[in-house]
């Protein structure tokens, strides 16, 4: 199990960052996918923005972007129609059979 998955199991959203070029490595891995530099693992900001969304049954699902770098899909809690670019936060992440992310729109 990777540090990314270990983190998700503890509701921690962590990613690897290159020690050489300082860029986030996404998807996370043990070496940088730009320069093959060594990495450190660090928490990702849980504040992001909405890229796109749709809805299945009563659940809104979406693509969210964090630190202008990492885009992931997850479910979206919202009480009104979302607007593209709207701010959101990651309120829960976990890893059961796969990664799971739950976002909430910020008013």
């Amino acid at each position, binding site marked *: 199990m990777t540090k990314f998955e270990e983190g998700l199991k503890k509701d921690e959203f962590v990613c690897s960052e290159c020690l050489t070029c300082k860029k986030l490595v996404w*998807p996370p891995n043990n070496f940088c996918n730009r320069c093959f530099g060594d990495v450190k693992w660090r928490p990702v900001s849980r504040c992001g923005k909405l890229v*796109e969304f*749709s809805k299945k049954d009563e659940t809104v*699902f979406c693509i969210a972007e964090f630190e202008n770098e990492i885009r992931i*899909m*997850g479910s979206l809690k919202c009480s009104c129609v979302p607007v593209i670019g709207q701010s959101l936060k990651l309120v829960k992440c976990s890893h059961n059979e*796969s*990664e799971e*992310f739950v976002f909430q729109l910020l008013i």
Partner: protein
Amino acid sequence: MRKVALTGFGLTEFNKDDIAIDSLMLSAVKSLFDSAPNLSQKDVDVVLTSTNDNSKYLSSIVSEISGIRPKISHSVESLCNSGANSVISAFSYIASGLADVALVVGAERFDSPGLVLEWDKSRGQYKHPIYWSSMFTKSHVRKYGTTKEDLAIVSAKNHNHALDNPCAYFKKTYSIDEIMNSKNLTDDIRLLDCSMPCSGSAAILLASEEAMKKFTDSPVWITGIGQKTLSAGFTKNEELASMESTIDAATMAYKMAKKEPGDIDVAEVHDAFSICEIIEVEDLGFVRKGKGNEFVRTLYETNDRRINPRGGLIGAGHPLGATGMAQIVEIGQQLQGKAGKRQVSQARVGLVQNMSAAATSSSILILES
């Protein structure tokens, strides 16, 4: 680089039959040999298999049960464009002079493990393809005003075309209303906007200019190839209303073939979902960006079959590893003038666009008679 021709084709019916992957492939190989009286197993020096099935050593198994002892034999897997990529690999062996005659066979079972993209961390729990296609659809709707009816027209058109394809999974047509009223899978995707997983197989024989003379007097030449991989993860697609990998691959293929979009008489494009065909006809340059919906509507209203004449993936079914090859078989037959009721008149230049996993990769071939 030597010229390479497509010289023979084999297909099975696409259905939900529970058949082993090697048996499916053997059926397509038999169909190809049955239609090529001058072809002997001894002529074949490459056997490539393409599938998302988890079989091991499959190309050697298929070689053995087909009575072939090739020089080169291996599998090619790249999800939904495994088929086109295996044909391009065979092209490369022949063009380079490493081989003269290649048999390529693709197949999938209805329950393929390639249907769920569980390796993609960026998708979270949304691993099924309906989720990425919902994102593409929503984005195109927002940017270009594409409607649910526009989407339904793609499906209605391709089901109409499939009715004249004896190998197609679907054997019936649907009205636009029936498609729009089919089950909502998400807010943006209805059941009949989707291609269906199924069992099926397709086989193609490729040969050098010298070797092909034994097998056919109507060769179809591969004159353009373009391939592009952006990523494995869906969310690396920065622009959701376009397919960047298709744009890049098409640019390469047109350049190699010295052709332009206006030169293409007939095309098979990868309509895994209705929205895909609308985006692809734009990104292949057949129509200006944002006008794909109008273009497809005109095709439907005028019964113009030049896009997806066999019914595409939506009408013909989507046996992943066989899909790209079935697309190439269709364009090959069109350029030979042997497409029967599906024939597009005076088709001389054709294009195949086969993509994988939300267009994170695309493969394009330009074929000429």
